[in-house]
């Protein structure tokens, strides 16, 4: 059991920077997810923690000790790979016990640990099989089992669910969460799937272009993103961004999206936004769920407006509606019974309690 610390961690491949000096503190027993688009440096970071990748600069600390030059086998970590990396010529039992056998652990101790892990993962009856005779989900379990039996300081997961089909992925996601609740071990998990990140993590680290954009709980990231990248990356469908102007009007502020469309800024935010009055290149950010159907009683800062819908996508429990504002496509989520249809004019409500104002130049959320 241990905490993991990254200090000014840098990785260059030849001249190409992959990780540009990141700092991160992962506490004991915490489940941290590194998420970001491909090429953002998340896997490289994980592989540096594992010791599979040389460090160009900075430090990796596991349990308070600098492990920069410690080979992977002496770091007391376990890793689950995207394509499972099971030894094809060994049975499930042999796969799971391989690390222990190399360490010359007593036989009955190995059996005990493997059976215990197999029980946690519900693969007890598969122990004699070869990896080829297993389904994708079962192989993933074995790969996790191999990590669990080692009882390491840190679990590392490198996109472990990417090779599974959609349904199995959701199932295994829950499974991983359950396992972490049973086997409380510090975990670093890499994925490009923001849903996985949100559902699994105690804290999410959003990475982009080799840098950390933001670190926070899933709720933090969702409701108070600090940059446009995070705001756009977390949440599906993605947040709407519209160029806007900030105007002074009738004792308050208004965001003007077009000549016809403008909304009053919530009272409690006027002080925060006032310094940016009249500034150019501002973006107005609003999540699709904050654009909904007209309802009889509007709460504070909910503003009705009328649009002509372009496309509607009925999802069953909700309908996604798309319309244009100044030529930019905007997505909203309405009740399936609200009567939204392609090409129809409809009254919608924008809930500005959850609006964001973004400086498009720096990408910072104001």
């Amino acid at each position: 059991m241990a905490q993991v610390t990254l200090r000014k961690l840098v990785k260059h491949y030849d001249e190409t920077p992959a990780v540009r000096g990141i700092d991160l503190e992962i506490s004991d027993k915490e489940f941290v997810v590194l998420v970001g688009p491909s090429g953002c440096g998340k896997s490289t970071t994980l592989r540096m923690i594992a010791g599979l990748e040389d460090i160009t600069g900075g430090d990796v600390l596991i349990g308070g000790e600098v492990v920069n030059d410690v080979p992977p086998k002496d770091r007391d970590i376990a890793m689950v790979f995207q394509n499972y990396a099971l030894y094809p010529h060994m049975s499930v039992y042999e796969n799971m016990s391989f690390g222990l056998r190399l360490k010359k652990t007593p036989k009955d101790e190995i059996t005990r640990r493997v059976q215990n892990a197999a029980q946690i993962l519900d693969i007890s009856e598969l122990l004699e099989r070869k990896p080829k005779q297993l389904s994708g989900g079962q192989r993933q379990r074995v790969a996790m089992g191999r990590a669990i039996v080692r009882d390491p300081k840190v679990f590392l997961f490198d996109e472990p669910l990417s090779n599974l089909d959609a349904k199995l992925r959701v199932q295994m996601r829950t499974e991983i969460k359950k396992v972490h609740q049973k086997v409380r071990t510090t975990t670093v998990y890499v994925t490009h799937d923001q849903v996985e990140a949100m559902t699994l993590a105690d804290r999410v680290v959003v990475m982009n272009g080799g840098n950390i954009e933001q670190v926070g709980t899933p709720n933090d990231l969702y409701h108070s993103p600090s940059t446009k990248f995070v705001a756009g990356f977390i949440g599906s469908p993605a947040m709407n961004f519209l160029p806007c102007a900030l105007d002074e009007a009738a004792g308050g502020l208004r965001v003007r999206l077009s000549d016809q469309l403008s909304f009053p800024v919530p009272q409690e935010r006027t002080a925060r936004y006032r310094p940016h009055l009249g500034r150019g290149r501002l973006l107005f950010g609003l999540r699709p769920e904050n654009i909904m159907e007209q309802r009889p009683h509007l709460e504070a800062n909910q503003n009705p407006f009328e649009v002509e819908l372009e496309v509607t996508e009925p999802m069953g429990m909700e309908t996604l509606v798309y319309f244009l504002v100044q030529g930019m496509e905007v997505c909203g989520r309405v009740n399936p019974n609200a009567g939204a249809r392609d090409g129809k004019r409809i009254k919608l409500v924008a809930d500005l309690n959850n609006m964001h104002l973004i400086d498009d130049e720096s990408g910072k959320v104001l």
Partner: protein
Amino acid sequence: MANGIAAKAPASSPARRMTMQKLMRRRSTTALALALPLIVLISTLVIYPAFYAVYLSMLDRTMEHFTGLRNILFLLHFDTFWMVVKQSCLFAITAVIFKALIGFVTSHFVHNLPAKGQRKWRGMLLVPWVIPTAMSTIAWFWLFDPSYSAINWLLAKFGIESIPFLGVPGWARFSVILVNVWYGAPFFLIMYLAALKSVPDQLYEAAAIDGASWWQKVWYVTLPMMRNIIAITMLFSLIVTFANFDIVRILTYGGPVNSTHIFATWAFALGIQGNNIPMGASVSLFMLPILGVAAYFILRDINRRGSSV
């Protein structure tokens, strides 16, 4: 309607076309037709010569009288024959083992080279295998020359007496094996390199995290993953090496005193040079059961493992 179409069809008689169509529709007929070129090819190039060799081996020296198994029985009581059997086995097995070892080690070296320079090295290391053996063996012949060769010149520099590489049975056997290893190792290198490249990197990474040392990675990951390729390559090479002709023929002529003869060169010496073709055919037939047994064991092992993985 059907009649109308038949009437419009060109001259060939409709009845005959019907039987042809019926025949073609039978799957076995089509299969036979498709396989026929191969059957003809194998029959003329493999089966016919093989049976002709069996027939030849049953004739007497004049090739006029049928003698049954007399040639074979004669060989079984002939000391030189047993020496050739021993020498062939020694030659093939030793050479294949060293080729496999050298191929395995060099393939690891080449595999670990940076991708940029790898092609160059691969190309250079393949050269021995690409040069026509007759030519390269002549070069070796010069290298082994007792008085003027480069090797002996070097040995003389260090004050070591010159070695009669091709003049003494022991050294001559060593020399033919050395040349064969030199010639055949690149084949193993290429096969093992291909096998190495097909082992996923993540297996090594998983093993590294599991705590495996370099040797343990080779033992627990590389070797099991390469087993089939190793077995097939060694079997293939065993057959080719066992049936080798050119190296021994050019380097030693089977000498000194028949001590380096292997089946093919001795069969040639008896049959063509000794003007006893039936005896030569009998000698070459002895290769068949020996290789057959080896092939059976190695291929059986591959099948068994193939189904278990």
